[in-house]
């Protein structure tokens, strides 16, 4: 029994490290893309269109993962696509987290009319199909990185608000908050000093999950051709293009898809791993 338990723990640790490793790799790729990309991600060459990846016949040197139907290098585009993906993950994830958690904390701790308003808003948001909502928002705001980040924040703040509100309410009902208030701290002071540290582990877990979601949302928006400008390489844009030529050049779809898959999986496994680390706090 004890042995089996130890093994499970170790495997969780391994998953945590694999995920963190992959994400670090991506971050480096995003930072260094202009220098490590073998080709110019935008350079088209119709004579080199739909080259297969390196292990197949009929390749050109330097085009490791083949080219798309316009002759652009798939590997270079994936590397450059990581820049958009990572930016969206970090910035949109963090902003969503901060805003959502703040609203949830306010609602859960102050209760009263603040809670009423925020809860109603959450209900309304839950009645929207999120993908449609984000597409609608992008159509309104116009394409671009900032627009995508804004859309993600507007749509996903409820994920944090819901969970944090419930947790803050549970924590607020506990004795130590009451005793802190008796000790003479104001409401806001109590909220920040006593409740926040207790919901923090939960927030961190949700944050990593949200980063994965942000990457997906960006890919979906690129897929319906509403992301940033059509020139900039994004994984979603590559996937959209690969989807149309999947019977002629599967690699245009497969490589960005694998990258996206691993990235999303890593973010969520990182979240799960952290959740286990925080286990005593989360029960």
């Amino acid at each position, binding site marked *: 029994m004890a042995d089996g338990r130890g093994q499970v723990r170790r495997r969780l640790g391994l998953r945590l490290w694999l995920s963190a490793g992959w994400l670090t790799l991506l971050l480096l790729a995003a930072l260094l893309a202009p220098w490590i990309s073998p080709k110019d991600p935008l350079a088209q060459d119709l004579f080199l269109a739909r080259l297969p990846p390196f292990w197949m016949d009929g390749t050109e040197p330097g085009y490791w993962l083949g080219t798309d139907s316009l002759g652009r290098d798939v590997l270079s585009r994936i590397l450059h696509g990581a820049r958009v993906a990572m930016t969206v993950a970090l910035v949109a994830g963090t902003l969503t987290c901060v805003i959502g958690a703040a609203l949830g904390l306010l609602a859960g701790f102050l209760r009263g009319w603040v809670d009423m308003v925020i809860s109603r808003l959450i209900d309304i948001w839950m009645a929207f*199909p999120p993908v449609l909502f984000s597409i609608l928002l992008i159509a309104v705001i116009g394409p671009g990185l900032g627009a995508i980040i804004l859309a993600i924040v507007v749509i996903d703040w409820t994920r944090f608000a819901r969970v944090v509100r419930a947790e803050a309410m549970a924590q607020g009902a506990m004795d130590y908050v009451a005793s802190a208030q008796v000790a003479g701290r104001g409401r806001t002071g109590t909220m920040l000093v006593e409740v926040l540290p207790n919901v923090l582990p939960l927030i961190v877990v949700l944050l990593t999950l949200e980063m994965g979601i942000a990457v*997906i949302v960006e890919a979906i928006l690129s897929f319906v051709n509403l992301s940033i400008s059509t020139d900039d390489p994004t994984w979603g844009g590559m996937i959209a293009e690969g989807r149309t030529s*999947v019977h002629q050049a599967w690699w245009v779809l497969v490589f960005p898809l694998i990258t*996206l898959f691993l990235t999303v999986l890593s973010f969520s496994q990182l979240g799960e791993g952290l959740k286990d680390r925080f286990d005593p706090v989360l029960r």
Partner: protein
Amino acid sequence: MQLFRAVILRLLTTAVTLSGVAVIVFVVIRVVPGNPIAMMLPPGATDEDVARLTALYGLDKSIFRQFLIWAGGVLQGDFGTSITTRQPVLGLVLGRLPATLELSVMALVIATVIGGFAALTGTRLRGTRSEAAIDVANGMALSVPDFLWGLVLILLFGVLWPVFHISGRVTPSIDLPFTTNFYLIESLVRLRPDLWWDIVSHMLLPALALAIPLAAIIGQVLKQSLKETMHLDYVTLSRTKGYSETHVITREALPNAVLPALTLVGVQFTFLIGGTVIIERLFSYEGLGNMAIDAVINRDLPLIQGIVILFAVIFTGVNLIVDLAYAALNPRLRHG
């Protein structure tokens, strides 16, 4: 009396939620840059033409007036006229609804079967390696959203081993003799296995893509719930009666474990329906979601409004049904 009050309260909050959705869509889409009227007129149309059409669609009035007019129409069952197709929105939307409903329900059925099977097998084999393997697969399925599963399925069963269709709802060359848009149901009713199979082989991959994450959630929640139930005395008592482990799990534990899992699955089902938007796009499936994306791209304001409201109605409706099902299945509430 208490029940009556609960129902009234529930209907009121639902009304508030739906109005909120209506107001938000209405305001948001009227900030859209680009004049939808100018887009629908042929080049060379005069400013006068534009103004006339704008007035026709009521777009020259203030947002507040427009909303009142629209809301008044909605209460009478008139959702306006689509700008791109110039047909009544209600008809367009209801024409596509069956496709999305069939897809969602099929996905729900698949998810319930797979998830339920995983939970039961995991419980039956608890403590073994197989249980651990099921848990890992569950975790994977849970971490990756429907959009990516859809792409994976396209590659696997559309390209690598092309056994299913990856786009459309039915083979275009087939002339459907149907009177409704519930193709799947009607093909069954009319006893046309050939058509039925064509429709199913179009629906299967998108339905599976939607189903995989939900199946994982059902598997996880139901298994947890089963685990708690299996410790209870009546389960032990049933074992001493001479019943097999499988019987004990499915007959004694399962009915009581389903109930706590139900509410959560209800919420997740609304997420699944929301997922049809992108999955329909991915598989070029002619449902509501696909229509919605086209409507956004074409700036078809009345159509967007209609579709979003319909989704909101479906979502709140599903939640209502889940709550009712919960009450109906719980003997404690049934005979309270």
